[in-house]
Structure formats: C-alpha cells, structure tokens
C-alpha cells in the first residue's frame, strides 16, 4: 500500500506543486503584510513549475492512487491546456485594474486561482465517480468565490449567488444520477461500470435516467443549453480575468471529464471492439443522440441570442455557449477523429477566446466601459488593439486564414466522415449567424466615429507584448497547423482504452 502511494505521488508532481504553491501564497500574505507583490509571483512560479512537470508526463499511461485518477496522454493534453490558460490569466491579472483595485485581498485571489487550477487538473484525470464529484466541487466552489471577488460591485456578488444556486442544483442532480448508476452497476470507477454493463447488462430505462442526470452536471460545467442560464450573468458580473478563465479552462475540464466518462463507461472496450475507428456503443442507450440535440440547441441559442447583446462581455458569453455547441458536435460522432477535432478546437479556442477577453479587459481598464458603443472608433484610437481584436473575432467566426478555421475544418470533416450531414449543416448555418454579430463589433471599431472622446488610447509595452503573444498563435495555427494536429492525434489515447 505504502509503496503504491509513493509510486503514485511521483506521478502526481504537477498537482503537488500546485498545492505547495497554494499554501505558500496564503502564508506569504500573512507573513509579508506590507509586500503584496509576493503572492502573484509564487502563483506564477508554481504554475510554471507544474506545467513543466505536466510536460514531463508526456507519454505516460498509468492509473494512480488505487485507481482514483489516471495519468494518460488525454489528461496530460488537458492539463497542459489548463496550465497555459492559468499562466495567461495570472499575467492578465497583473494588468487588470479590476483585480488590482482589491489590493488588500490579492493573496487570496491568487491562491484561489491555484485551487481552481488544481480542481481542473483533477477533472482531467478523474476515472472514479467519487473523484469526479470532488474535482467538480473543488472547481465550482473556487469559481463561485472568484466570480464574486470584486464584491464592492453588486453585480459581482449577484453573479456569485446565481452561479452558486445553479451549481448546487446541478451537483445535486448529478449526484442523484451517480447514486442510481452505482445501484445499477455496483461500481463507481468507470472501468467497473463498463464491465458491469458489458457483462451483466442493466435496465435501459433506469440507465437512461441516470445518464441524463449525470449529463446535467457536465452540461452545467460546459454551459450547454438548457443548463446555461448562469453563463451570461456570471460572465458579465465576474472580473474579466475570471470570466476568461472560466470560458476556456473550466469548459475544457468539463469536456475532458465528459468525453472520458462516456468514452470509457458506455463504449465497447474489448479488443477488436471497434472495426474502422468508429466506436461501438454498449447496450441500446444512444447517449450521443441526446448530446446531438443538446449540441444543436446550444449553438443555435448561443448564436441567436448573441445577436441582441450590447454588452461585449455578454456577447462573448453567448458566443462561448455557441462554441461549446460546436465542440459537442465532435463528441456526437463517436470516433477518434471526432475527439481529436475537439482537442484541436480547444487549443485554438484557448488563444482566440482569451485574446478577445484580454482586449475587452484592456479597453475596460482605460474607458471603464464594456458596451459595444464604447468601441466606436477604436480603430483610430488604438490601431494595434483594434486589429488584434479583428483577428480574434475572425478566428472565432471560423474564417481562413486564422486558426479558428482549422478548428472548424477538422470538426466538420469528422462529422462528414461519420455521416452526420444534417448536424454539419446546422453548424455551418450557425457560423453564418455568428459572422453577423462579430462584424457588428468590427463595424463599430472602424466605420463609426467615436462618440465623444477621440484621443488615442495608450497601452504599456508589456500589455502589448502579451497581446501579440496571443495574436501570433491565432494566425500561425491557421497557416501551419500540422504540429497542432499531430499533438491532438497523439493525445486521444486514454488509459485502458485500445
């Protein structure tokens, strides 16, 4: 037992580093009361070190801690993605006037970001329903608090409470589903559930209810319709840095967990189980049909409602709901190509979405406004920021030559390959709708005169460097995407599968 735990610990370094940094950040705030600059540096250092250990885990495929979590290429991919996002968010926080205005509690802010990152790392690797619940709960609790971090603003506390009530409700429903699933199969680890369904067979109606209830929990995390109600309010009310973090990392962790849960629990794992790269469903419950419906609802509602939004944070919130819908299409097709497409999309989405939120933050820092009208004439007031924003928005629409196009291309290719033509058509129509509201922002920036203030907006060099660091991959991956595709294809390998 002890040997096994020590062995597991050596595979658990990224998370251990985060826990250490978390405790140090809290302590530093108590010890160095005068110097508030230490906690952010500890957070940044901890995240970099943990990202280094994540890259060290490349190629490992192992179950650790009595089969509670796994370290496999799939988990490593998502941990890498989440780690990069967390580092960028910490960098954003240095320049966010919203966050810096809460100077007194800055230590807790960074320690909570570390706890949130840890929760997402665990979500990426959890293979036991118990671990899934704990990881979701760690992620959710810290997100509730961070969403309400700038408590002086009433919006922020409201966002927190809404987030919390919806979150607690969906956790409750998910737990009920888990309890039924446990009763049916007598197991809580997903390999055991698979074995029980494959060899003993279970009642389909009961299984369906359990799966739908568990899907509520996942749907909440990835903000899929109809579990999205919290998203716009929370994205609008929370500090921009946290909104950006939730929109990318939290969604990624949710997808990682959902794909792993469905892939391992309800797909035939026996050798020779999949003839030509298509997965074989166990028993009769076609959960992918349910996911297909959710996907269509999610992207359609996200895009249609985004058209009416005047606040840019809300607009991006609905756009992120729509993007969750696109990515769900990759889960529907039941093939490795589909999952690889989701991974590619996430890598691309990381840069373009964080970039868009970063621009919103920079502009809000200077003008104090987030509505679309305040972007009038931004093209003249700050050309670099405006042009970068254009690139991010084009990429979010999915037009060449940006990375967003590559993401969509692989998704649609996977759909066509699996004969899901109608879903691909719905996805394509949705992209057209999304063009409309993204162009509305572009038009405001370049074709409209600024309402009152025409003075140029200046940004510091460091801020521009971070911006450029996000623009480059957004364009580069649109032109040279082979390494991205290779990375994604290598990362679809899950422990115990194939």
């Amino acid at each position: 037992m002890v040997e096994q735990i020590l062995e597991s610990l050596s595979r658990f370094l990224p998370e251990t580093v985060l826990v250490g940094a978390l405790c140090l950040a809290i302590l530093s705030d108590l010890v160095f009361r005068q110097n508030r600059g230490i906690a952010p540096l500890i957070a940044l250092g901890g995240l970099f070190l943990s990202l280094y250990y994540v890259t060290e885990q490349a190629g490992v495929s192992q179950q650790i801690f009595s089969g509670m979590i796994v370290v496999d290429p799939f988990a490593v991919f998502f941990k890498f993605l989440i780690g990069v996002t967390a580092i960028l968010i910490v960098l954003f926080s240095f320049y966010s006037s919203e966050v810096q205005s809460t100077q007194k509690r800055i230590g807790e802010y960074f320690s909570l970001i570390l706890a949130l990152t840890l929760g997402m790392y665990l979500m990426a690797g959890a293979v036991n329903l118990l671990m899934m619940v704990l990881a979701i709960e760690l992620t959710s609790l810290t997100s509730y608090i961070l969403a309400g971090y700038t408590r002086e603003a009433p919006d922020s506390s409201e966002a927190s409470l809404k987030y919390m009530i919806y979150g607690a409700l969906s956790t409750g429903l998910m737990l009920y589903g888990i309890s039924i699933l446990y009763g049916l199969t007598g197991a809580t680890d997903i390999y055991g559930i698979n074995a029980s369904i494959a060899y003993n067979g279970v009642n389909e109606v009961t299984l369906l209810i359990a799966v739908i209830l568990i899907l509520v929990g996942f749907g909440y995390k990835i903000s899929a319709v109809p579990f999205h109600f919290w998203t716009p309010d929370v994205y609008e009310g929370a500090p921009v840095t946290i909104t950006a973090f939730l929109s990318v990392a939290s969604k990624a962790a949710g997808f990682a967990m959902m794909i792993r849960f469905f892939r391992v629990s309800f797909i035939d794992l026996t050798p020779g189980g999949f003839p030509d790269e298509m997965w074989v469903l166990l028993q009769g419950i076609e959960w992918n049909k349910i996911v297909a419906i959710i996907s269509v609802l999610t992207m359609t509602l996200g895009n249609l409602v985004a058209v009416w939004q005047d606040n840019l944070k809300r607009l991006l919130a609905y756009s992120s709901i729509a993007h969750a819908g696109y990515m769900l299409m990759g889960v529907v097709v039941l093939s490795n190509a589909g999952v690889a497409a989701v991974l590619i999309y996430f890598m691309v989405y990381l840069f373009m979405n964080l970039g868009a939120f970063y621009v919103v933050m920079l502009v809000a820092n200077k003008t104090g406004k987030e509505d679309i009208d305040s972007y009038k004439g931004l093209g003249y007031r700050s050309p670099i920021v405006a042009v970068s924003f254009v690139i991010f928005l084009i990429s979010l629409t999915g037009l060449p030559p940006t990375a967003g196009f590559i993401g969509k291309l692989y998704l649609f290719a996977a759909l066509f390959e699996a004969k899901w033509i109608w879903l691909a058509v719905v996805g394509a129509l949705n992209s057209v709708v999304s063009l409309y509201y993204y162009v509305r922002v572009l038009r405001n920036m370049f074709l409209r005169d600024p309402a009152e203030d025409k003075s140029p907006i200046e940004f510091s060099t460091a801020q521009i460097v971070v911006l450029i660091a996000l623009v480059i991959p957004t364009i580069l991956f649109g032109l040279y995407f082979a390494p991205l595709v290779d990375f994604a294809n290598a990362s679809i390998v899950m422990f115990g599968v194939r």
Partner: protein
Amino acid sequence: MTLQAVLFYLLAAVSIASAIMVITRRNPVTSALFLVLNFFSLGGLYLTLHAQFIAVIQILVYAGAIMVLFLFVIMLLNLGDSQSLREVISLRKLAGVGLSTAFLLEIIYILGFRVSDFPAGEVTRGLEIGTVEYIGQKLFTDYLFPFEITSILLLAAIVGAVVMAKRKLD
C-alpha cells in the same frame, strides 16, 4: 411486521412530513428546525440499514455543524418573522413543479413495476461493513487520495468563505 419495517414506515413518514414543512414554512428558523428533524429521521433510517458510522456522522455533521451554520446566518442577518418574504406563484415555478412531479412519477414507475435491475433480497453483510473499523480502514487505504483532496476542498472553502464574508462594515 418486523421491527425494521415498523421503524422504516415511522421514520419515512417523519422524514417526508418534515421535508414538506421545510419548503413550505415562511419563517426560515422554522424551516431550519424541521430540517434538523429530517436529518434525525434519516439518521434513524441509516441505522435500520446497519450503517452505524454514517448514522452517527449524519447527526454530528448535518445536525451538529451544517444546521448550526444555517441558524447562525439566519440570526446574524436577523431574518425573523418580519423578514419573511411573500412568495409568488409564477408560470416558471409551476412549470418547475410540473417537471419535478413528472420526474417523480417516472421514478416511482420504474421502482413500482420492478423494471429495474436493482439488487433484491436482504441487507447483506450490513453489520460488517457499516462499522467505524471497516470504514476507517477503507478510508485510509483505497480512499486515502479523495480524503486528502477533501482537505484541499475544505481549505479552499474556508479561504473563500472568509474572503466573501469578511468585509469592512461601512
């Protein structure tokens, strides 16, 4: 009827009645006290299932810690009778109740017609697995990892609760 059956029906009646009282009382203090009653009846139900350890911590953690927290906040915010809110019935709420009832009927159907594959028969190995020794042994071997993660969850919750609740009164 066996003792287990008598206890089951008695405690089931108490727990459902108290649950209904929790969500129908206007004064949050009354609700909280009925919730404590509900927790106690559940503790009794756990005993009928031979889950001694769970029954004890149900009382200690829920009735002892969580409910005290609730009552403390109600009193801190001074939400007595005067603060009770008038509840309104809206279309959304009716829809919610309708959906919930449909869900309930569905579950009852599944259970009632025994179309499920739930384990049948009697409580097996109950006296063995419900004890503190057995659970403790599991907890610090197979479940050591989640146990440790729980400590981080609680640390984050403590930090968060302090951050949210501590604020200069101005």
